[in-house]
């Protein structure tokens, strides 16, 4: 690194000593900009730096740099570059006028602005081939840039930023924010208002927005955290991650991973070819995926999950759980409401579900162990458990112990319906609960650990009868697989 530093220093000297003739001309203007009037800047070929502060005075400093083979040429060219300041009833326009050049020439130039403006004045900036930096704009406004970085900090009011081929960074805006970018990253932190972002080929990060967040992203990652309102994200090929959203979350992804953690409202998550993960969803959950693995826990409402060629693992659902997977395993645990699971060529396991259970499977084993769904509310979060979570954890432990000891006195009817082919079925029934059972299989055996009162005809592949006093439906249909009913 020392070598590089030395090289840099030498290079600096060389650049200063050799070749071109460089001329700098400064332009300074100061004029009043009363409240209610705005500032508009039209510029290219240089940076625009704007500081806002209380007051009613606009101070413009332009640094014009020109180089040419001859000093006079550089000087003349610099003189011809005009900083035009037009004062009108609507506000002040600052414009850079470059003289027209024809043919090949040796002139080069850049103009950088350093402007101090009244903080309450609305601002409009148009720039090309340079960076734009605005500090503390309180009057809102718009920035339109290309080929340059845009940085805004400490803003108030509605702000719109457009950029292409440059990053956009907003650090603090007390008002709605809209950003359109083409090929640059967007970083937004701390916005008191809504946030709308459209970016075709750059990563988008939004952190701490109090209002609604809407993001249309093309081919890059989207990360949203600490959103105070609903979040809607549309993406194509990048991962979408939403953490801690105080509202509904909708993610429509095409070919990217989706992750939603800590959502107080509903979550609607869609993608294909990449995994979906979720945790701590306050209300209903909907997942539509294809060729995706879906994993998640702790859903405050019902959960409907659909995928193909990817396993589903769902734990802790307050409402009903509906899982549909093609060619993959399904594992559901801690479901307080009704369970419906359908798959083919994959095993299905349902544990600790409190409501009616229906499993439709093809060529997949089915294991059902009903329960009281007491483990559902304990999330896998890394932080310490809350008081409520601790109580639930204890209850879950007690219930598990009771269940293992065969002492649980189940009192609520929990109908179970299972259908599969070419695979075994194993059902654990709680003691004390009566079932009206119909079991049928061909090329397999039916065994029952709980005593049964058999009714009707007994033949090789079907069995009808009661467990206990009956009363609750237990329907088990299989082909070419054993059926085992156990305590």
């Amino acid at each position, binding site marked *: 690194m020392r070598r590089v530093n030395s090289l840099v220093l*030498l290079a600096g000297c060389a650049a200063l000593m050799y070749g071109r003739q460089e001329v700098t001309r400064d332009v300074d203007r100061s004029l009043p900009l009363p409240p209610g009037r705005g500032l508009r800047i039209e510029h290219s070929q240089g940076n625009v730096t704007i500081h806002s502060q209380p007051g009613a005075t606009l101070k413009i400093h332009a640094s014009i*740099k020109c180089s040419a083979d001859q000093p006079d040429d550089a000087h003349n060219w610099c003189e011809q570059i005009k900083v035009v300041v037009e004062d009108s009833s609507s506000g002040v326009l600052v414009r850079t006028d470059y003289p027209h050049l024809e043919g090949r020439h040796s002139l080069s130039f850049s103009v950088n602005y350093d402007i101090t403006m009244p903080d309450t004045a609305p601002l409009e900036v148009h720039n090309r081939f340079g960076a734009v930096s605005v500090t503390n704009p309180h009057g809102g406004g718009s920035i339109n840039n290309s080929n340059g970085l845009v940085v805004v900090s400490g803003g108030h009011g509605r702000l719109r930023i457009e950029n292409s081929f440059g990053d956009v960074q907003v650090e603090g805006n007390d008002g709605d924010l809209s950003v359109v970018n083409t090929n640059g990253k967007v970083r937004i932190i701390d916005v008191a208002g809504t946030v709308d972002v459209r970016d075709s080929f750059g990563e988008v990060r939004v952190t701490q927005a109090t209002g609604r967040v809407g993001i249309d992203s093309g081919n890059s990652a989207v990360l949203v955290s600490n959103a105070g309102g609903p979040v809607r994200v549309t993406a194509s090929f990048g991962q979408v991650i939403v953490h801690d959203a105080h509202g509904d979350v909708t993610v429509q992804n095409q070919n990217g991973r989706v992750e939603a953690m800590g959502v107080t409202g509903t979550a609607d998550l869609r993608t294909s070819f990449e995994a979906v993960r979720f945790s701590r969803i306050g209300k209903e959950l909907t997942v539509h995926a294809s060729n995706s693995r879906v994993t998640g826990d702790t859903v405050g409402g019902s959960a409907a999950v659909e995928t193909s060629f990817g396993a589903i693992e769902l734990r802790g659902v307050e409402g009903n759980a509906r899982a549909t997977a093609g060619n993959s395993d399904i594992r559901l645990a801690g479901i307080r409401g009704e369970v419906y699971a359908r798959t083919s060529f994959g095993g299905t396991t349902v544990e600790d579900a409190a409501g009616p259970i229906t499993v439709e499977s093809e060529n997949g084993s089915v294991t059902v162990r009903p329960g009281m769904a007491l483990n559902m509310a304990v999330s896998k979060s890394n932080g310490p458990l809350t008081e409520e979570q601790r109580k639930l954890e204890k209850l879950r432990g007690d219930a598990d112990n009771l269940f293992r000891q065969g002492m649980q006195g189940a009192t609520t009817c929990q109908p179970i319906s299972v259908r599969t082919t070419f695979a075994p079925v194993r059902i654990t029934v709680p003691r004390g609960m009566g079932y009206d059972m119909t079991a049928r299989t061909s090329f397999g055996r039916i065994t029952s650990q709980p005593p049964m009162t058999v009714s009707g005809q007994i033949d090789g592949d079907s069995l009808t009868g009661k467990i206990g006093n009956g009363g609750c439906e237990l329907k088990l249909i299989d082909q070419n697989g054993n059926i085992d009913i156990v305590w």
Partner: protein
Amino acid sequence: MIFQCADLERALRTAELMPDARRHAERCEQCREQLFQWNEISRVAPQLHEDWESDTLWPRIREALSAEPVRHQRPRTWRWALAIAAMVTLAVALLMPPRAANLGGPELLSDGALREVQQAEAAYARSIDKLAAVAQPGMEQSGSPLAAAYREKLVLLDSAIADLKKNVEENRYNAYLRTELASLYGEKQKTLREWMDYAKSK
């Protein structure tokens, strides 16, 4: 060895298997195509510039440049060395990661620096063209949405490069424009590489 298509990837990592792979490719069109593409990548890759490893290099260069006082009376023997150093440094700057240039920094280039930058630019553009020649046929043929997205991005980048080149022609010594052009070339190179990585993984 009875060579099968599935062995190709192993053969690419194991020199001893390559003769078998080539023999197999003579009668297998799919493997022949893959082998050709790998050969092309191997041929083109050494000519490609490497991205600079540090995001903070450019700010450090800028800091150093602005901190260095102007020294007018140096022995003449130093001048060429200094000029060459400037060329090298600016060539490095040309290869900096995208978006490193922003506020501040040297604004106008010297003659020598411009020449070096132009040479580096031309070499960079040529190497990217070669990379594109390898990557783009597959991308053009693919009907996947991802390929369509990459095509769209390349069209966008090519259009921006053309626009920037036009501005560079009008303002040839402007360091910012040159830096932006380099970053767009870098973006194009990255895009092509991403596509090739994706195509290779399929």
